[in-house]
């Protein structure tokens, strides 16, 4: 047997598993993720589904992908370019090759490159890229995976179709071998999953081992890698996606603080999984309401909030647009409500399965009249948990609707999460009516505390009967009032109430780098990973740059202005045409520079680096 060296120099590896939607790609990626997590790598993952439910097999439209980066260092994004590209058919190669780094490894299933598949993938003249010179800059491992799997399982007693479904396990075994990972975790998983179908379990395990052994025994391979565990913070970890984290954050906020949770929603990509996740947790008393549309969903949530529940509604851009009128009502009613927007490519129906950050101004301003709402944004999959938890706290403690922004990238992406225990969770305390909220024995539903928070009086309690509504309300009593002075004062109060929330939120931190650096990269939302990584690398290279990432966009953190003004120059990368940028320029009159990308895909680390270097250059030459 040939001697194979194990290369231990790699700190990070990016792999893309790609194939047809039916090829079990998501499962394969998920298993690999679990294994390296258990091993102790840091990891970031991003699944990429086709836009169609089930596009024709073998076509470019039908390609499904699972991208992951794992490393012995902190991992911030699923990676810009792949080190390893695993393709189950020709279309998968065609669609993804451009992102493979020069010299990268291709693992290809040759039976996915027969003439039928080549035609479906629209290769010119059906020419096979595996056999011409087009891939000479890469390290290509063309393996007839289908055939080898068939061979291995010929005595399994399974049907041809069933056997073919095992080929992803062959690939997984092979990749485990390549990265010096043990297949044991997956074997355990398979045994558990197919408990009742032992012949299927056996076949899958056999395919897995065959793939693993193929690496060991085959003569073709020269490189094998080992990526050491990352020095992660001590503690217990699990893997979590953004939508899952969002759902769990809601359950935690409700369950830990004895509120009933009501999530009212109408399905929409990429927000639906929040509804799906929550609907499983009936045992926590979670009520989910699949409404007839988004308007009904937000209104039902308002009704539930009036009834005393922690009420949340979620959607994506087009659905959020429909909620605008009712969100204005919630502002007027001053009831707790959380509105989650998992953003996707727009405008209109746009690119439903792609990501974007172009709904920020919609969330701030997309309502009639002066209707201020706090707006928070999650920075990564696991950050969704903290962000939604905090949003629930602010909604309840400040009696206000709150917006939480996520997007398709972090909603579907996943990463290891050092999950909290219930003891780590902040307590959320509603402002209940007290004796100061009465005048001559009459309850004053719009009496306020020093931060303008009114009491939450829930039906069922005697003596607190009161009426809410969307017409302008009289100070303190909440009765209808057409009085001009009263209206002006109420507008002022609603504004101050939201602004005062800044006092209940932490100061803004600098995520990386130092105050006073030449250049600040200011970000929000899902650009966190790319910016963090780019800034980290460039600081290491000696560039004077820093990274601040905003969770709190309305109100801004109290210390933001002074922080911002300490930098020579501010650039703001956003997956939109410069929305946060507008807010910063307007508020602080800083000539912040907007760096835009609106391609439905996240910024690469490289793109952020280039932007930094470009503007850093300006600063140094102008200095």
């Amino acid at each position: 047997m040939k001697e194979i060296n194990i290369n231990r120099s790699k700190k990070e590896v990016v792999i893309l598993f790609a194939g047809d939607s039916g090829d079990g790609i998501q499962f394969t990626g998920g298993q690999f993720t679990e294994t390296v997590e258990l091993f102790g790598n840091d990891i970031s993952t991003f699944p990429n589904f086709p836009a169609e439910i089930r596009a024709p097999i073998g076509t470019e439209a039908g390609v499904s992908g699972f991208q992951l980066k794992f490393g012995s260092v902190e991992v911030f994004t699923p990676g810009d370019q792949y080190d390893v590209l695993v393709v189950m058919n020709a279309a998968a190669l065609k669609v993804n090759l451009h992102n493979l780094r020069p010299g990268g490894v291709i693992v290809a299933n040759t039976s996915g490159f027969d003439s039928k598949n080549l035609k479906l993938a629209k290769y010119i003249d059906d020419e096979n890229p595996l056999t011409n010179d087009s891939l000479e800059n890469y390290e290509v491992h063309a393996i007839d995976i289908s055939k080898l799997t068939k061979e291995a399982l010929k005595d399994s007693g399974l049907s041809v179709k069933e056997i073919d479904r095992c080929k992803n396990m062959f690939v997984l075994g092979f990749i485990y071998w390549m990265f010096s990972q043990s297949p044991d975790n997956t074997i355990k998983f398979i045994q558990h999953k197919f408990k009742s179908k032992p012949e299927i379990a056996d076949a899958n395990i056999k395919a897995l081992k065959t793939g693993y052994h193929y690496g060991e025994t085959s003569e073709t391979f020269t490189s094998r890698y080992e990526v050491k565990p990352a020095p992660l913070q001590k503690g217990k970890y699990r893997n979590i996606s953004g939508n899952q984290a969002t759902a769990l954050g809601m359950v935690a906020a409700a369950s830990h603080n004895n509120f009933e949770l009501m999530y009212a929603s109408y399905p929409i990509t990429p927000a639906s999984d929040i509804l799906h996740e929550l609907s499983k947790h009936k045992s926590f008393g979670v009520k989910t309401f699949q409404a007839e549309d988004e308007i009904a969903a937000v209104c039902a949530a308002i009704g539930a909030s009036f009834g005393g529940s922690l009420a949340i509604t979620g959607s994506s851009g087009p659905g959020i647009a429909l909620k605008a009128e009712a969100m204005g009502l919630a502002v007027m009613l001053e009831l707790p409500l959380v509105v989650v927007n998992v953003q996707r490519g727009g405008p209109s129906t746009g690119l439903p399965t792609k990501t974007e950050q172009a709904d920020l101004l919609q969330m701030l301003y997309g309502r009639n009249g002066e209707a201020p709402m706090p707006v928070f944004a999650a920075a990564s999959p696991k950050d969704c948990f903290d962000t939604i938890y905090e949003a629930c706290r602010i909604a309840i403690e400040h009696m206000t609707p709150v917006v939480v922004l996520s997007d398709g990238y972090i909603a579907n992406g996943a990463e290891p999460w050092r999950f909290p225990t219930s003891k780590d969770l902040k307590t959320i305390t509603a402002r209940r009516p007290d004796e100061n909220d009465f005048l001559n024995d009459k309850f004053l539903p719009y009496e306020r505390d020093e931060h303008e928070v009114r009491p939450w009086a829930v039906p069922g309690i005697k003596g607190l009967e009161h009426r809410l509504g969307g017409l302008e309300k009289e100070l303190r009593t909440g009765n209808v009032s057409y009085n001009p002075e009263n209206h002006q004062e109420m507008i002022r109060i609603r504004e101050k109430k939201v602004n005062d929330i800044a006092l209940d939120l932490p100061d803004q931190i600098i995520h990386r780098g130092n105050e006073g650096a030449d250049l600040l990269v200011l970000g929000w939302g899902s650009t966190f990973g790319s910016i963090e990584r780019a800034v980290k690398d460039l600081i290491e290279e000696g560039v004077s740059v820093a990274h601040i990432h905003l969770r709190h966009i309305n109100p801004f953190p109290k210390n933001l202005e002074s922080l911002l003004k300490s930098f020579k120059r501010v650039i703001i990368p956003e997956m939109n045409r410069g929305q946060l940028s507008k807010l910063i320029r307007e508020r602080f009159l800083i000539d912040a520079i907007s760096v835009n990308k609106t391609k439905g895909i996240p910024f690469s680390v490289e793109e952020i680096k280039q932007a930094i270097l470009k503007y850093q250059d300006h600063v140094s030459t102008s200095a």
Partner: protein
Amino acid sequence: MSVQVLNPSGNGNPLTAKDYATDQDVRWCPGCGDYSILKQVQTVLPTLGIPKEKTVFVSGIGCAARYPYYMNTYGMHSIHGRATAVASGLKAARPDLDVWIITGDGDALSIGGNHFIHLLRRNFNVNVLLFNNEIYGLTKGQYSPTSPKGKVTKSMPYGSVDHPFNPIALALGAEGTFVARSMDRDPKHLRDMLLAAHQHKGSSFIDIYQNCNVFNDGAFGLFTDKDTKDDHTLFLEEDKPLVFGKETKGIKLDGFKPIVVSLEENAADECWIHDPKDKIKASILSSFFEYDMNQGALPRPFGIFYKNDRATYEDLLAEQIEEHKKKDNTDLDKLLSGENVWEVK
């Protein structure tokens, strides 16, 4: 319904209609039919044995929708067309509350049509009072989805070309489980209907003819004016024959076609006997609407067209939750950790 029947006033004295009135000036136009409906509800509520604080009125926008401000219970004057949606969420969250929806013909059937039909199919245990004045009152007189075709209003000065909804037929088509009609001008009948609606467990819908004396005065004159009302109204009572015109006339079915017969020539008990459980007969009754003067006019039925029992949404939801509370994980820490945990030491 899981409403707690407490001594409502809490101190031994029964509540009265007055206890349900607020200190806000009632601001409907003098003479508006809304006053009577307000009064009947305030009269009926104290008799229900529901504590005042467990009662909630939810409305949309319109003249009618100002209603909650005049009820000294919990209440919400929401946004146009959405009272049914707000109430759905409230009732799902709080099955213990007694929830009343106040809406207008524009509010419920124009902008709010979708939530209205979905509420009925889901069968939340709430009561929907539709103040049907066949006009938009609050916005000063445009035609509504119940205005008759040809109606001259500000927004169609040469007459509307819209064929109207028949609210009863729509509610039946939308799987409503309690469908009734009443009117502002017959306090006793209205009170009876309110009571019956409240007793029904499920979504109870009452189409209440209400006179808007400013923008659509006399729209229901045929059914309220002394001269005409006896011949044009038919009061439905369970197990009773369909008779009207001061008991001079009755309704029989000729196949599926309802015809008017004289009670001088026919015995009352040979007439159609009202059975509110029969949905097909309810359909026929709802279509009396279509027989106009020229086609051998039929009287307009008032009362309970249809009523049947079906599980409510909130009960089914609550049951599911109870069931899973018993058998699934209820430990938050377990939920947070999930199934696949690893430790970095």
